[in-house]
């Protein structure tokens, strides 16, 4: 779950990482009041996307009046499709250098990794490899001072800035670990006359660990259908094609989509209802899918923990109770296959045994419909 900048900064503050003085507001009047208190301010739209600067979602003001005008303007914006509900009004800080500092998880080394560069700022992804220091953290050691000294040496940093780093980095690591973050990124980490200040905050919390952090708000950046799917513990992503796809397992779902494209169709979605689904979950996944009004329905089941008879029964129930009036291509093999095929037969569906046949048939059905 991505946190808004201001929430990330609240966490930074809690962990002792310096942030600019500031206030979160949701209307122009409050922005004016905040600017009046703070002085020269920067007004930042709180949206869960990068590129807000380039989109005009960040602005500066020196007076309450200016702040009000800018706040009004930004509150009416959409930044990369996200509506702006909140603004962060912050003191404008004097930045001598923009540093990049992040903690994230490195799958390859199976541990947290620190990324640091003196070339922070907007174009960080373009920074050449040799200007970016990476450090894989041994979780049993954590981030001790020696780790920071070595990172500083590789960055070419010494003196007071090194001391600041030695104070800051272990705090960021503690936040990263204790808050179950997938990402804790500061870009830019501003070097100012007063030392290091986190001028931005990108913190993402591991969804699988949210239960350990009931204090965090529930931030939604999904469509209603995606939220509904999440509730049902179904992996669902909307795409813009025509064939609705339902399969069990992420890999096979992806492969099914690939095959739809391979045979000239376009998938309407990615729906993986996982392993071991029961009748109800099958029915719910199906209903979710039907609600999107696809042209053709393609179901690809390779039963392992998932039992074919259960999926077939779920399908039959929906078909009988609610009706399924679009063309269906169904592939059903694996555990309790015979029973499943029998159930489908009763509701008029002839199941395929191979994925290839089922996908080809779905594309044919789509083409037939188009003609």
């Amino acid at each position: 779950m991505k946190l808004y900048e201001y929430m990330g900064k609240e966490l930074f503050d809690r962990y002792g990482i310096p942030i600019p003085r500031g206030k979160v507001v949701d209307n122009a009047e409050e922005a004016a009041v905040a600017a009046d208190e703070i002085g020269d301010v920067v007004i930042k739209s709180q949206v869960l996307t990068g590129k807000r600067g380039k989109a005009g979602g960040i602005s500066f003001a020196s007076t309450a009046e200016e702040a009000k005008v800018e706040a009004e303007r930004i509150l009416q914006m959409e930044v990369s499709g996200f509506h702006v509900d909140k603004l962060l009004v912050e003191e404008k800080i004097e930045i001598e250098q923009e540093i990049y500092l992040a903690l994230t998880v490195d799958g390859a080394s199976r541990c947290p990794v620190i990324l640091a560069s003196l070339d922070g700022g907007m174009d960080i992804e373009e920074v050449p490899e040799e200007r970016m220091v990476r450090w894989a953290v041994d979780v049993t050691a954590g981030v001790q001072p020696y780790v920071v000294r070595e990172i500083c040496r590789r960055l070419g940093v010494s003196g007071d800035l090194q001391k600041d780093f030695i104070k800051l980095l272990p705090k960021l690591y503690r936040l990263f670990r204790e808050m179950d973050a997938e990402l804790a990124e500061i870009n830019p980490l501003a070097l100012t006359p007063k030392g290091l200040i986190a001028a931005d905050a990108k913190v993402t919390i591991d969804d699988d660990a949210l239960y350990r952090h009931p204090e965090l708000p529930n931030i939604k950046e999904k469509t209603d259908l995606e939220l509904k799917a999440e509730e049902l513990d179904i992996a669902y992503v909307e795409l813009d094609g025509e064939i609705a796809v339902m399969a069990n397992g992420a890999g096979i779902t992806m492969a099914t989509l690939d095959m739809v494209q391979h045979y000239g169709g376009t998938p309407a979605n990615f729906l993986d209802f996982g392993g071991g689904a029961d009748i109800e979950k099958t029915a719910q996944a199906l209903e979710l899918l039907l609600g999107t009004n696809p042209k053709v329905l393609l179901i690809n089941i390779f039963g392992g923990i998932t039992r074919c008879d259960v999926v077939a029964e779920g399908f039959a129930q929906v078909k009988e109770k609610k009706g399924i009036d679009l063309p269906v291509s169904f592939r059903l093999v694996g555990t309790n296959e015979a029973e499943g095929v029998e159930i489908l037969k009763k509701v008029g569906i002839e199941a395929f045994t191979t994925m290839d046949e089922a996908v080809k048939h779905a594309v044919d059905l789509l083409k037939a419909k188009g003609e």
Partner: protein
Amino acid sequence: MAIFIDGNTRVLVQGMTGNQGSFHTGQMLAYGTKIIGGVSPGKGGQKVEGVPVYNTVFEAMEKETADASILFIPAPFAKDAAYEALEAGVKIIVLIPEHIPLHDAMDIMSFAKQKGAVAVGPNTFGLVSSGSCKIGIMPNRYFIPGPVGVVSRSGTLCYEIVGHLTENEIGTTTVVGLGGDRVVGLNFIDVLKRFEEDDETKTIILVGEIGGSSEEEAAAYIKNSISKPVIAYLAGKSAPPGKRMGHAGAIIERGRGTFESKVDALTKAGVKVAELPAQVPAMIKEVL
């Protein structure tokens, strides 16, 4: 032969008395796996499918040393159970659950390394040395002995491909599921290395998908260290660009992670990449 596990591997089932645990205990026993005990705190003294249940892994290990343990434990408690197995001296742990918190997974991997143990998963279907030992949740009937080693990031897709092999009467030595999470204990390289050393494995199938850089790393390793033919299938060709982990994700991946990057890397390493799962058996026959 086979890799990691064989007919002599003594297996514990943690969480044996739960729904999944008891069902798959039956399935594994049916496959021939030598299950020596189960662990379910508070359920010690019961039996599941005739196998004794203990309260702790230590108690089980007092009776008979287990070589491997498979965990059917809800995600929030998986770290505790994994640590227990590792501290008790189990050298292979198979982490079936999905949704294990990322930081728990990193802790488990660190602790496993410290104990000189192998962690498979999390979010894996497990592993099976065909015909002798299954420690996982894959359907029994597709896994028949033969000369092909299979390593896969995803489950059902792997069954799909092994199913195609089985139809063509091509069997497998060992099939290993790495697990679908970002942090998993085994990666392609670990498994490829074992297949290379295993005399019975004549050729290798690698089933990958988009995201991460493990296929690219595998490609580099294959180029330098694998003499046996490798066939790959990769899922995700049609997938839209995924969500990025801030800039950090991009910095770590450095352009790797896409379908094209993976196909490119593998092809350059001499790996043949199948376009459809159904093409794999023919490609295997060519190199066997």
